[in-house]
C-alpha cells in the first residue's frame, strides 16, 4: 500500500479510538481523586473485578443460565409466532378474527406482565421463560404476517393451478418467500428477549428479596443490594452488551447463510 492510504487509515483509526480512550482515561483520573474507601467504579478496578469473576466462574455460569432461558423462551415463542403468523398471513378469516386481540396485547410491555407472571409461576425460571416468550412472540408474529402478505400472489396461484397441495405450497412457496421477513423478526425478537431476561431477573431479584433465580440480572441485583460492588455491576453491564452484540452478529450470519439471494 502506498503511504497516503496508510496515513488515512491510521488517522481514521485514531479518530475511532480517540473519544472512548479519552473518556476511560478521564474516568480513571476522576476515580483516583476520590478517597480510598469510595465505592465508585474505576476502569482498573473494573478490569480486576472482571478477572476475579472470570476465575471464580460465577460470571460465566450466570451468563450461561440467562442465555439458556433466552434460547428456550425464544424457541417456544418463535415456533408459536411463525406457525400463527403463517396461518394469519395465508387466511384472511384467521387474521380478521385474531388481529383485534393481538393488537390490543402488543402495546403492553413485557415488564408489565411480570407481576402477573410472578403471581402465577413464582419467582423462578418459569417466570423468566414466560416473560422472554411474551416479549419475543410479537416481533416474530408481526414480521411473519408481513412476510407472508408480501409473497407474490401469482406464484401461489400458479402453484395451486398446477394442482400442488396447500401444504406443499405453504412449505415450498410461502415459507421461502416470507423467510427474509421471518428472519428479521427472529433477530429483533432475540434482541428484545435478551433485554427482557435482564429486566425479569433484575426485577424478580428486587421484588422477591433475592429469592434466588440466578442469571446475570440476578447477579447484578445481588451486587447492588447485598455485597455492594459497583465495579462488578459495570462488569455485568459490559457482559450484557457483549452478549447482545454477539447474538445480533450470529443472527446476521444466519440470515446471510439462509437467504443468500438477498446479499
Amino acid at each position, binding site marked *: 500500500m502506498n503511504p497516503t492510504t496508510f496515513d488515512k487509515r491510521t488517522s481514521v483509526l485514531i*479518530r475511532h479510538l480517540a473519544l472512548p480512550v479519552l473518556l476511560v482515561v478521564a474516568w480513571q483520573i476522576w476515580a483516583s481523586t476520590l478517597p480510598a474507601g469510595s465505592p465508585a467504579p474505576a476502569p482498573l478496578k473494573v478490569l480486576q473485578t472482571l478477572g476475579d469473576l472470570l476465575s471464580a466462574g460465577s460470571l460465566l455460569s450466570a451468563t450461561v443460565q440467562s442465555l439458556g432461558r433466552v434460547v428456550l423462551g425464544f424457541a417456544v415463542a418463535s415456533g408459536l409466532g411463525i406457525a400463527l403468523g403463517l396461518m394469519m398471513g395465508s387466511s384472511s378469516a384467521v387474521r380478521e378474527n385474531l388481529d383485534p386481540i393481538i393488537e390490543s*396485547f402488543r402495546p403492553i*410491555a413485557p415488564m*408489565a406482565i411480570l407481576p*402477573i407472571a410472578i403471581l402465577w409461576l413464582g419467582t423462578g425460571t418459569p417466570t423468566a421463560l414466560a416473560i422472554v416468550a411474551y416479549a419475543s412472540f410479537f416481533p416474530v408474529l408481526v414480521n411473519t404476517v408481513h412476510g407472508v402478505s408480501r409473497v407474490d400472489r401469482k406464484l401461489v396461484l400458479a402453484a395451486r393451478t398446477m394442482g400442488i397441495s396447500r401444504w406443499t405450497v405453504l412449505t415450498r412457496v410461502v415459507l421461502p418467500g416470507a423467510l427474509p421477513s421471518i428472519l428479521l423478526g427472529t433477530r429483533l425478537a432475540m434482541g428484545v428477549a435478551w433485554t427482557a431476561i*435482564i429486566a425479569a431477573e433484575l426485577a424478580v431479584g428486587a421484588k422477591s428479596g433475592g429469592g434466588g433465580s440466578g442469571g446475570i440480572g440476578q447477579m447484578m*441485583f445481588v451486587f447492588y443490594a447485598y455485597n455492594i460492588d459497583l465495579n462488578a*455491576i459495570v462488569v455485568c453491564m459490559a457482559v450484557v452488551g457483549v452478549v*447482545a452484540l454477539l447474538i445480533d452478529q450470529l443472527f446476521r450470519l444466519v440470515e446471510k447463510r439462509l437467504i443468500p439471494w438477498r446479499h
Partner: protein
Amino acid sequence: MTTANSGPLPAGTAPTAGAVPVRRPTLGAYRQLWVSLRAFGVFFLLWWGLHWWNGNPLQLPSPIKVLEALWVLLREGEIAEHALVSTLRMLVALSLAIAVAVPLGFLMGLSKRAEQCIDPLVEMLRPISGIAWLPLALFIFGVGDTLPVFIMFYVGFFPILLNTVAGVRQTDARLLAAARTMGVGRGPLLLYVLVPSALPTVMVGIRLAFAASWAAIVAAELIGSPSGLGFAIEWYRQLLMTPKVFAFILAIGVVGYLCDMGLRGLQRRLTPWAEGTGVSS
C-alpha cells in the same frame, strides 16, 4: 387498507385491476366492528372459563371484577394520577433525547469526521440495554423521578440518533447540488433542504424511541420509583389486589396506544409529504 377508500374509485370497488368487485359496499366498517366484538367476546369467554377452572381469584380474577376495579380506579382518579406522572416523565425524557440526539445526528450525518469520532462510542453503548443501567443508576440517582427519566432518555436516545443520521444521509444529492449551485448558504441549506428531507425519518425514530422508552418505564418504575403506572402494578401485586393489577396493566396498554396515536397524528401534521413512513416496529 384506508387508501382503498380515499381514492377516486367508487366505494366498494377493489383497486387492483382484474379483481372481482367486493359485494358488501357500506358494511365494511360495521363488519370490522362486529368481527372485533366477536373476537373479544370469545376472548372474555375463554378468560371466564379459565377463571372458573382455576378457581383462585387471587391468581386470575373474573373479567367482571377487573372491569369493576378499573371503574373504581378511574372514578377515584388513581389511574389518571399515576398515568399523568408516567406520561410527564416520558415527555421530559423524550424531549431531552430529541434535544440531544437530533443535533448530534445532524452533525454525524453531515461530517464524516464527527461520525468517525462519535460512532464507535455509540456502537459500544447501544448494545447495553437501558434496563442493565438500572442498578448503577439506582446508586447514582437513588429512588425517585430522575431514575426513570434517565433510563427512558437512554433508551430513546439511540433510535432517534440513528434515524436522524440515516435521514440526513438519505437527502437527495441532486437537491443539495442544485441548492449549492444557486448559491444557497449553509444556514438556509440546512433549514430548507436538509431538515425537511430528514424530518420523516426522524419522526419514525421518535416513534420507535417512544415505544422503547414506554416499555422501559414500566421496568424503571417497578424497581426504582415511588409513583407511576409501573409502581402501581407492583404495589397492588404485593397487596394481592389482583383485579387492580390487571386494571393497571390495561391502563399501561391504553395510554401507550393513545400516545402512539398522538405521535402518528403529529407525524401526519409535521411531515405530510412523507410517504410510507408507517414502519412497523
